[in-house]
């Protein structure tokens, strides 16, 4: 019986004619002597014949029409996953290793070029220019009502600006120029190295006090108060300076919201130039890692 079980395992090879001569001879001898195995082999052959002679079925005549309707009328949904997975295999016969190797090659070349690039110092004006767009458009185009001015970090400086000592690209506002030249810390130091993470406007120009000139102080102040919750900021203090008709608001805002704050002031019709009044300056601004306290002076426009 054991031999019969082993014989059954060899039916495939025997049927395909892929057995060695000796083994086949031995197997045929067994089949001649064993009726069950012989019958079994006959059924095996019949099975093979039945499987291979199954008739070929053909698709219906309208198969192509139906398929074309499915293929070309259904828009294929765009998938980011598919896009990235096929990014390097979009060429028909390009094996994946070529794509990967090419990528590695490009990265290496990039690193080499980067390391050989001239490593001259960054001009002091450049970083300001980089981050200036939140303020610059109003100064340049004049489409909006005005521009938010910027006072000196550590003292309440006069509005007048001395002659620039360094060349600033044309088109930048004098206020930005002023800061670039007279900031309490060197701009490069404030920026850190080029490998540091992106920094906010407040980080670059320093958390500092602002002066806003507006035809309607009330309107500008109310606008600011309404805007504060949107900026995740809050009003810290509010002072009135009756003799000169000014108001000073102390606001606590997240460091990253500095640009939004200035935009809000501009959007609500505020106009500001210069550094503000020379007398009775507001307290200096303070900042920690995440928040900034700014004092905004609202004064009548001239």
């Amino acid at each position, binding site marked *: 019986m054991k031999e019969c079980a082993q014989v*059954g*395992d060899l*039916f*495939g090879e025997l049927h395909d004619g892929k057995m060695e001569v000796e083994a086949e001879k031995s197997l045929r001898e067994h089949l001649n002597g064993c009726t069950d195995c012989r*019958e*079994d082999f*006959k*059924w*095996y*052959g*019949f*099975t*093979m*014949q*039945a*499987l*291979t*002679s*199954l*008739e*070929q*079925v*053909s*698709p*219906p005549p309208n*198969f*192509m029409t*139906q*398929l*074309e309707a*499915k*293929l*070309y009328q259904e828009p*294929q949904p765009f998938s980011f996953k*598919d896009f990235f*997975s*096929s990014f390097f*295999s*979009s060429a*028909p*016969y*390009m*094996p*994946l*290793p*070529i794509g990967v*190797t*090419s990528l*590695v*090659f490009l990265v*290496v070349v990039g*690193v*080499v070029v980067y*390391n050989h690039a001239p490593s001259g110092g960054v001009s002091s004006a450049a970083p300001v220019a980089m981050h200036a767009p939140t303020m610059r458009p109003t100064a340049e185009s004049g489409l909006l009502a005005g521009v938010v001015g910027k006072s000196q970090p550590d003292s309440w400086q006069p509005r007048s600006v001395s002659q620039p000592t360094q060349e600033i690209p044309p088109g930048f506002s004098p206020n930005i120029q002023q800061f670039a030249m007279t900031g309490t810390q060197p701009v490069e130091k404030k920026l850190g190295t080029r490998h540091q993470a992106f920094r906010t406007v407040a980080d670059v120009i320093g958390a500092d006090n602002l002066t806003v000139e507006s035809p309607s102080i009330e309107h500008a102040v109310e606008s600011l108060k309404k805007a504060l919750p949107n900026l995740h900021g809050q009003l810290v203090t509010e002072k009135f300076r009756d003799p000169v008709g000014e108001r000073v608001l102390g606001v606590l805002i997240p460091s990253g919201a500095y640009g939004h704050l200035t935009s809000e002031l501009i959007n609500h019709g505020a106009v500001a130039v210069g550094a503000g009044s020379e007398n009775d300056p507001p307290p200096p601004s303070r900042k920690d890692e995440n928040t900034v306290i700014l004092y905004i002076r609202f004064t009548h426009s001239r």
Partner: protein
Amino acid sequence: MIAFPETILNWFCLNIVVLILFSALKPEADDDYEVVRRCLQGNREAFNELVEKYSKKIYNLAYRFVGDSEEANDLSQEIFVAAYQNLKKFRGDSKFSTWLFQIATNRGKNRFKYLKRRGHFASKGHTENDEDREGQQKTIPDHSTNPETLLAGKQIQKIVQDAINELDPDHKEIVILRDIEGFSYEEIAQMLNLPEGTTKSRLHRARMVVKEKLKRVLS
């Protein structure tokens, strides 16, 4: 500054050249290379050519998986749609036909499992088996000694199809690919991502199951 020895650069260049040569030489073995290339350029006619060429074989394979014309039509269309949508992923590591039948086998297997869960084959098999058995008793006088006569009968086709339907999906796909579609062991092993030895042994077991089924039904 990163050190960048010349030898590493040489190695990269050599590697790229070898891979480019490898990829340039390989497609010559594939008859469908040019048509696939045109497909990838957005030529619909080219894909239609591929459909025309393979629709009969794919439909036949689908029919053997699901044992029903309507289902086979639906399945084979699904296979071509899947091939069309994934054509950009075809990297030419194998022949296009192997790749297409790989998709077909996967889809066929999944559809077969789905239909089996829903009792599609159980209800179908019972009624047809009974009819077939009666038919066979009348038309085949001596089936144990004359199997060729059996093959001539139309009903035998249904009996064989039922026997295939009773196989488990892993055995079924191999029987279909080898004995019905006529692929080589090597191609099947590539399609199913199996060692050739496993393919052979699985095929043998599948044939033995079909044989027992036929023997039981026809004896």
